[in-house]
């Protein structure tokens, strides 16, 4: 077959594009750690124990909390009306970039933020913003809260997608017929089956939560900040002598993440053992449903409420005229902030769009090639290959992006938009693949057999049958990729060398300045781009196939 020549190599090319930047970047970052006394200077830094503890503490706490909320939501409530409501409200929040979520939460929580204004002066007695460290609190509670509300929608959607393969409905019915409570039945029969599928996502959440930079800069403590935030301060410092310290710190951060993952793995095994022991006792634990259901529902609604309040706060401030504390609302609304920000917004939006469109288009083309190669040549990825795909999402960004930036500098592509787009691709592609693989594989194979029995070539089957029939999941996966690219902070900052400015890097940079109206405009635009992409991904197939009953959602 001549047509498949290049296609056959698509999976290998894609894996190279994922693995090489991570491995080369890792080597490039860690090499200078042992030069020029980087390790010694890092150990001399008085903030080190606290920064490391913050990374571990906020990361593990937020990951466990997000996981607990997600699991209890599904275990206690899935299939019910409250669950459907929470899911419908949370799904669009997946598109909200981390930076916008963090900024919105900061607007909500700050001493002069919306919550304080809503409660003052009638409940608090405050007529001036109180001198309290609610935001950027030294224990990292605000950061933990931000990470939890951002990760719950992600874990929830991953878990929902994994349920059908775990035969969840029938298992639950069986457990119920044996007299088990809902939560107990789910935990004992469904969780063991879905866990292997969601495990990489949970690890990615844990690693991400420990090392998130943009959220830590906005919500996290400052003296000292979390380890990753401090690393980025060193990496972008004009003093080149800080680089070896940053490299040594990156090594430590990598070690911390690997240690946390190992710890988590031990916890997993212990939990599984406990589960097996509990299963043997035969206790039905019906009463657990009584309190866990309302608790999970409450937590889910709280996440929705916090996120909705954050988004509303961003919108409100971007449109606010004069707004004196403690009034709950501004005196006037206007477009002043938007007008003042317009030139900068336009430039940043342009670069953001360009990066997102290029990296998403490349990622979608590569993923389609991989999946088509899988369909034509049976090149199904094994579980080890799938871990390679998760590598860029689990490996801490601060551990490999600096080395990659350094590599870019050496070959002279640093600061170019192409290099940044390539770096975005490393993070966009796994998400596009993970979104598209399941619907792609679920496509009725008899359609292809029918096509080929009618004399159609593999190419014709791909372009005329599979692609149009899967247009909706393909566009949804592309929208996910688009949202991921729009939200990228660290790759843009480090690979762009400060010369590539997106809405995300600008919004985070502005956050220290404290002009809420301008920050509001950047954050609003940053979060509307992904939402627009998702809206388009829903509307386009619906319009194209409006006269095709068999193409409706769920058909």
């Amino acid at each position: 077959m001549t047509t498949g020549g290049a296609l056959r190599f698509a999976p290998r090319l894609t894996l190279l594009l994922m693995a090489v930047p991570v491995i080369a970047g890792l080597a490039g970052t860690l090499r200078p750690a042992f030069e020029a006394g980087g390790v010694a200077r890092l150990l001399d830094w008085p903030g080190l124990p606290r920064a490391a503890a913050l990374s571990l503490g906020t990361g593990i706490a937020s990951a466990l909390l997000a996981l607990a909320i997600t699991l209890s939501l599904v275990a206690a409530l899935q299939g019910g009306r409250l669950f459907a409501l929470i899911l419908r409200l949370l799904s669009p929040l997946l598109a909200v970039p981390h930076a916008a979520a963090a900024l919105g939460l900061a607007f909500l929580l700050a001493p002069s933020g919306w919550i304080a204004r809503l409660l003052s002066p009638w409940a608090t007695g405050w007529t001036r913003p109180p001198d309290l460290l609610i935001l950027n609190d030294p224990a990292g509670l605000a950061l933990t809260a931000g990470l939890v509300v951002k990760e719950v929608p992600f874990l929830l959607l991953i878990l929902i997608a994994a349920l059908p393969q775990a035969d969840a409905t029938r298992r639950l019915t069986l457990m119920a017929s044996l007299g088990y409570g809902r939560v107990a039945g789910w935990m004992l029969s469904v969780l063991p089956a879905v866990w292997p599928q969601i495990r990489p996502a949970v690890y990615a959440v844990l690693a991400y939560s420990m090392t998130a930079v943009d959220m830590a800069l906005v919500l996290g403590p400052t003296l000292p900040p979390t380890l990753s935030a401090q690393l980025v301060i060193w990496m972008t410092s004009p003093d080149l002598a800080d680089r070896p310290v940053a490299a040594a710190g990156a090594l430590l951060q990598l070690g911390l993440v690997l240690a946390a993952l190992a710890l988590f793995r031990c916890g997993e095994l212990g939990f599984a053992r406990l589960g097996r022991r509990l299963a043997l006792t035969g206790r039905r634990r019906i009463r657990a449903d009584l309190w866990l259901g309302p608790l999970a529902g409450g937590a889910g609604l709280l996440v929705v409420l916090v996120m909705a309040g954050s988004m509303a706060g961003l919108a409100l401030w971007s449109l606010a005229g004069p707004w004196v504390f403690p009034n709950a609302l501004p005196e006037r609304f206007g477009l002043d902030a938007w007008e003042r920000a317009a030139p900068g917004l336009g430039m940043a939006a342009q670069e953001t769009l360009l990066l997102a469109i290029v990296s998403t288009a490349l990622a979608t083309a590569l993923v389609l090639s991989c999946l088509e190669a899988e369909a034509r040549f049976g090149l199904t990825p094994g579980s080890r290959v799938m871990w390679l795909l998760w590598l860029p999402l689990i490996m801490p960004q601060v551990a490999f992006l600096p080395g990659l930036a350094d590599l870019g500098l050496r070959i002279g592509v640093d600061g170019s938009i192409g290099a940044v787009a390539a770096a975005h691709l490393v993070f966009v592609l796994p998400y596009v693949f993970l979104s598209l693989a399941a619907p792609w594989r679920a496509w009725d194979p008899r359609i292809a057999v029918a096509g080929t029995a009618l004399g159609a070539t593999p190419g014709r089957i791909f372009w005329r049958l599979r692609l149009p029939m899967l247009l909706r999941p393909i566009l949804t996966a592309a929208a996910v990729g688009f949202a991921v690219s729009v939200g990228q902070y660290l790759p843009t900052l480090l690979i762009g060398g400060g010369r590539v400015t997106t809405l995300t890097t600008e919004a985070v940079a502005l956050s220290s300045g404290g002009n809420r109206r301008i920050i509001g405009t950047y954050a609003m635009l940053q979060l509307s781009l992904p939402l627009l992409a998702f809206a388009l991904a829903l509307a386009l197939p619906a319009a194209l196939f409006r006269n095709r009953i068999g193409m409706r959602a769920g058909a």
Partner: protein
Amino acid sequence: MSGLVLDRLEVRAKDTLIVAMDAVVKPGEVLTIMGPSGSGKSTALAAIIGTLGPDFSVSGRLVLDGCDVTALPTRARGIGLLFQDDVLFPHLSVGGNLAFALPATLRGRQVRRAAIEAALAKAGLAGFADRDPGTLSGGERARVALMRTLLAEPKALLLDEPFSRLDAGLRDHVRAFVLDLIRAERIPAILVTHQPDDARAAGGRIIDPLGRQVPVGA
């Protein structure tokens, strides 16, 4: 020689013989392969259409109108396939489904449209070209599926339990329509089924996947 010849066609999985058939199907004739589920019917079907997985080994030949097609890929064999379900393409109109099957050598919008209209008229579905397949009844869908298969100008037909999903009243009607058309167009056909009345209606030889004659009462 025209017609479909199964020349000692045998399929093995590891060392187990699953299919062993030796038969000649003349134009307009229908050979029936019958047997309970698990008897190797779908393996026989996959061997004839050319979609066997790599775990199977095939020996013997499949000869169609004098040409050995055993080594050809599915799309080059010239064997049309009718499924248990109609497997209409849900994103295309009825006319679009038929146009997909029409050979590309038939050129020109008008000519292609006319061929589609003629095929629809033959199936008693005149004026259905712009309809959404999702709005058709079961019998209408079955007839569109058959016309789609025939428009690709197959040299032989393979029918994979095409009537088993239709309800009883519709079943005799659609079956008569399909079998009459096969005879009229003089196409050699193989019917895979587990229903004795399908086999009787087909009117040809009835064998199981291992080539043994299957008795069905009158």
